[in-house]
């Protein structure tokens, strides 16, 4: 089932922004209940973006936890004129990036036989795979995982969260042109990786 690709909790932002700002202020002053409400409102959205970048439910849950810990530590830096959701998701993206880098470090430290047992994320979809519609999601996930951290994050931000190139650049600490090219590279690689799916869909029409 296709997930709505609307921007971070777009339908929630307009009416909740004032409340969020107030809650941030209260949480920064030591009000635990206020921060709990912020967690309740935004944890699912953070989970979704984390899952798309980290790739597994377990890792995404770790990213959610780390995102809110970092956000909590930085509450004093939140500017009330900003949108809390956007601010939080930027932290979430950075946490997810850091997490995947950390995971890569741990994985390369593991014995080769352990790594060999894992699924190759860059594996090319076979004809058998593409027969099954349910495999589309798996193949897209594989293609996403085969991207570099920077490319994957740029693609996820642009495609799933409709972030502007400027926003992507700010999150990834890239100039606008570099952010744009990160999206270009991601799209090109995704096109190549998913071409068998596109072809099989076209043949089926």
């Amino acid at each position, binding site marked *: *089932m*296709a*997930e709505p*690709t609307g921007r971070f909790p777009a339908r929630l932002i307009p009416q909740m922004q004032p409340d969020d700002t107030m809650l941030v202020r209260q949480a*920064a*002053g*030591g009000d*635990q209940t206020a921060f*709990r409400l912020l*967690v*309740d409102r935004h*944890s*699912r959205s953070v989970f*979704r973006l984390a*899952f*798309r970048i980290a790739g597994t*439910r*377990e890792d995404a*849950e*770790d990213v959610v*936890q*780390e995102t*809110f*810990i970092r956000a*909590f*530590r930085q509450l004093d830096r939140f500017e009330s004129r900003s949108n809390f959701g956007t601010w939080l998701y930027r932290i979430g993206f*950075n*946490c997810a990036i*850091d*997490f995947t*880098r*950390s995971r890569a*470090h*741990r994985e390369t*430290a593991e014995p080769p036989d352990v790594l060999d047992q894992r699924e190759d994320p860059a594996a090319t979809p076979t004809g058998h795979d593409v027969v099954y519609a349910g495999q*589309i*999601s798996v*193949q*897209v*996930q594989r293609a*996403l995982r085969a991207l570099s951290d920077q490319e994957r994050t740029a*693609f996820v931000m*642009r*495609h*799933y969260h409709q972030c502007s*190139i400027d926003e992507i650049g700010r999150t990834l*600490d890239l100039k606008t042109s570099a952010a*744009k*090219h990160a*999206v*270009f590279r991601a*799209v*090109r690689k*995704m*096109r190549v990786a*998913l*071409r068998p799916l*596109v072809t099989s*869909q*076209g043949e089926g029409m």
Partner: protein
Amino acid sequence: MTPLDWHPTDEDLTLHAYRDNTPEERAAVDRHLHECASCAAIAHEIEALQHLASAVDVPEPEAGFEDAVWARLAPALPHRAAWPPVRRPWSLRQVVAVTAWAAAVGGIVIAGYRWNSSGIVTPVRQPTAVATAPSQAQERVLLTALDAHFSQTEMLFVELMNAPDDAAGSLAFERATADDLVQSGRLYRATAAEAGHRRLTDVLDDVQTVLTEVALGPEKPGKQDLAAIRSRIEDDDLLFKVRAVTNDIRDRQQQPGTNEGAL
């Protein structure tokens, strides 16, 4: 200029697909795609990619997800104003892994010594003859490992405390070291907790929190990030605690009950 006087690049078509071009550019590309089959094929492939990518399932968190997040999060939040000091909890995954490891070796490894309330390691007074040999060997292994763990931790903290702010971009090695220490620290902590060594467990907990911050922190921390880590190390007296524990461990290694030749 006719639509076929030029061909949009892949980048142009990607911008077009995501509506990141100007209205004028969009109109020009649309006119061209209407006339040029090869460019239209590329545009079609990009649109297909967009369609496929949007079809990716993201598992919806189960009911009660927010409660579960908060249950993990609340104890891990740093002290702020009226909040009580708390510690970072383990994820379910980590708990399962560590518990399995601790169940395998934990209960017996530290059985040869005890950690008294002042933090000094002292041998069990009356070990049985049968139990002494294996427990001493196991103890030596653990003490050596703990010594290395805390020594590395101390070096890392010293490096972080003394790193110049403008060298923040070169902390990749420190992050990797912290990550390794986090992994091993979990096992030692589980073993210590299993054996009921409260003080050792507490020190490992305190250290683990900062190590995790470093390991999962930004690769290029800003001055504020570094300052926060240093403040944590100073406020919690972590260097003092680590050095004290290291000294205790080394004292224990020097005691006659251990076979120094094996260390």
